[in-house]
């Protein structure tokens, strides 16, 4: 519960400890498909009614599924807090599943996969990059899953999944906004008291083998206009000290107007059309990602050599004092910018609350990163951004163009 007074809005967020990582082979995409079913009605809510009730209240709502968790949220006028709690409690207690709903949402999700992945340039290559970087199945497969697995999903699968993962003890409720905490707690209690306790699943755990040497793959992309390159490094889990240091590396190499890789390759030397550096932080092994589109006339060999050369130089020389200071300022400013809305605060608190049992760790982590010195950052780059943990995917436009 985080009171944010002044603007009469409230975000209600329920985050369940289930993501695509729990899916076994043959069931890929199911966690996300199930997220769709959660909007299709429960004991007291008919099909389509969830959307209508939230709209009539003047709210916005959605759900998202990641590798590590699934969340459901409404941002509502503060006086409609009870509605958000009612909707969440009702679908936690008594979701109504039918084959008709499953078939309907199966098609919606397949269409979503076509829209976001299959019909877009480069999007399929991100699936290839994850499959190459990871050995264990949980992170090796994509959240959206495969068409075959989506097609095979059954109503029994949905019932089992709900029973197993949608227990109250496997979820965290966040209420953020213009509320009086004592009053809001009373309302929460009244709404969720009737959700019976169910056995919560054991904490999910899996073993990802240690990095064992560079991996490479080449893919053709019929929708891509330019060649592209993924350079990924498999690293430790979120909140590991290595990740704090890598979050500084990420900023110095890729953030703002001066991020080294972006500035040199995109702006100064015009070798790349775009370049992003990102730390994909997960509850298990995470990825330090570089993704770049080559400019026409620049080979992927050249682009890769330039990127790796810059990474090596950074690992050898470390950051300058000015870069360290800038990275700290960027971190503080982005922490301010990332906590401007009740929804953004709810997401942040929920993940820390669910994963770590302490929503307040967000502040701790900001402090931990601010306390790092240049030597620690250099050490992390030298130790972690190495060939052994590297996977490289080259994306080449396929030539075949057909006439209409």
């Amino acid at each position, binding site marked *: 519960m985080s009171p944010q007074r002044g603007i009469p809005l409230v975000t209600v967020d329920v985050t369940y400890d289930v993501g695509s990582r729990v899916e076994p082979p043959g069931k890929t995409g199911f966690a996300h498909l199930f997220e769709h079913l959660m909007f299709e009605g429960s004991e007291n809510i008919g099909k389509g009614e969830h959307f209508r*009730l939230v709209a009539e209240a003047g*709210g916005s709502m959605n759900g998202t599924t990641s590798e590590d968790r699934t969340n459901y949220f409404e941002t509502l006028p503060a006086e409609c807090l009870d509605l958000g709690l009612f909707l969440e409690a009702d679908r936690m207690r008594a979701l109504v599943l039918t084959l008709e709903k499953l078939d309907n949402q199966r*098609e*919606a999700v397949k269409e979503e996969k076509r829209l976001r992945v299959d019909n877009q340039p480069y999007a399929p290559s991100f699936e290839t990059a994850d499959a190459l970087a990871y050995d264990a199945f949980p992170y090796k497969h994509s959240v959206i899953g495969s068409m075959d697995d989506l097609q095979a999903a059954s109503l029994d699968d949905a019932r089992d999944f709900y029973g197993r993962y949608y227990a109250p003890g496997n979820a965290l409720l966040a209420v953020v906004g213009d509320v009086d905490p004592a009053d809001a707690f009373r309302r929460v209690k009244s709404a969720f008291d009737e959700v019976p306790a169910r056995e919560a699943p054991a904490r999910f755990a899996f073993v990802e083998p240690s990095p064992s040497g560079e991996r490479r793959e080449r893919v053709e992309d019929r929708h891509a206009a330019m060649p592209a390159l993924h350079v990924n490094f498999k690293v430790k889990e979120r909140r590991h000290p290595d990740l704090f240091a890598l979050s500084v590396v990420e900023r110095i190499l890729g953030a703002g*107007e001066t991020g080294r890789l972006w500035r040199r390759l995109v702006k100064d030397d015009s070798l790349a059309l775009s370049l992003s550096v990102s730390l994909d932080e997960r509850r298990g092994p995470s990825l330090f990602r570089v993704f770049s589109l080559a400019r026409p006339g620049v080979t992927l060999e050249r682009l890769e050599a330039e990127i790796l050369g810059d990474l090596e130089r950074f690992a050898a020389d470390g950051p300058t004092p000015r870069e360290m200071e800038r990275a700290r300022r960027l971190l503080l400013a982005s922490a301010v910018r990332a906590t401007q809305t009740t929804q953004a605060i709810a997401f942040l608190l929920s993940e820390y609350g669910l994963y770590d049992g302490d929503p307040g760790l967000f502040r701790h982590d900001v402090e931990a990163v601010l306390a790092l010195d240049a030597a620690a950052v250099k050490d992390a780059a030298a130790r972690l951004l190495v060939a052994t943990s590297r996977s490289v995917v080259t994306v080449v436009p396929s030539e075949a163009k057909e006439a209409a």
Partner: protein
Amino acid sequence: MSATRRLPPPPSPPLPFVLPTFTGARLANGLAVRAARWGRRPTVAVSVLFPGAGSAADPPGREGMAEITGDTFLGGTRRRDARGLAEALDDLAAILEVSAGSDSSVARLSILEKDLDDGLALLAEVLTESTFPEDEFEKNRRRQIDVLAEQRSEPDFLARERLLDRLYPGHPYGRLTATEKGLEALTRDEIAAFAATRFSLSHATLILAGAADPDTLLRSASRAFEGLAAGLRVPADTVPPPPRIDGFSIHLVNRPGSVQTNLLFARPALARRNPRFTTALVANQSLGGGASSRLFHVLREERSLTYGAYSSLSARVAGGQFSASIDCRTEVTREACSGLFDLIRAFAAGGPTGEEHERSRKYLLGSFPIPRETPGGVAQDEISRLLHGLPEDEWATWRDRVGAVSRQEACRVAEDFFDPDTGILAAVGDAKVIRPVLESFGDTTLWDADGPRA
């Protein structure tokens, strides 16, 4: 569903949402300043609105002028080169961009409140001392040409580009972005001249919203901007009214191997200043504004044809359009196309049901605070108010006007502006499969990703 179905709980007494009041001032050089205290975090959203400096002012044959001018403001100033400028911005953890819309360009600065004075000084330097170095201009221009080639691989870009081109033929609103030809022809001196004549402070408004009282914001603004030159007189040209569209036509952009068909329809509708615009927003909400609206409900939730189907209104200074879209797997293009148009046609003829209309009004009234939670949100309100020449109390009275829209008015506006028998349908997909399908809906012209088919 149980027999003793429990009803959703009613709301508590409503809490008032009061928008901030903008305080105004005008500096000696003519720059108007508007400031308001807003937001929960120690940050300030700063915008400078330059009306008339958008892509509609690109001279013929120089399409991309406003866009490249905006990019090249960060190419260097009299005091520092591009890298020096980048370092100065990052030292403040500031985000600054100058971006071109069709009717205006806007410089946007996001800055922590404690760094406001330094941030404003840097913004003033960029806007009045930029040197538009030849090499930086050249790099931006070349990059933009390559960006265009990349964008032509994205179905959404292709649909929107072709739609605007056919909805506004020969008109400045008919372009989604720069063109390769225009970019090739541009010179450094031309963009420097464009900046000098279109980005004059005397014609601009500086808007500040953030975690300080308006007087403090105004004082900071005048410290940074008051000694600066007014700039040249901005040409008083106006964008002509969009050309009239007769009938309905289909424009298919061939994208071999597409597994989906993207359908995007639009027709002329209302300019933002039209008093019926608000009524049209209420009506549109019932048809296609969200997940509880008719298009989404029927085409996705009932008929399993799509991931999402929506409609919207967009308004520019000289005109506006009503749009509707659906993306579907190639095999059901016929069902999706007829489904979309049948629903729009029925809505244009009959308008919303009483229940739909009530829900739309309630949604628009209740959700009003959500996009206005941040300083950037209320700054955007002020930008659109000024750009479209709306009254001072536009946003303060907006909910009263939405609340007063009757179902009959919503029906009339739907009849006048949503009828799909006039308009353009842009389609992107695998032409060898969907061309015959589309031809059964109307005259279909085939295009390639980069333009007319030879």
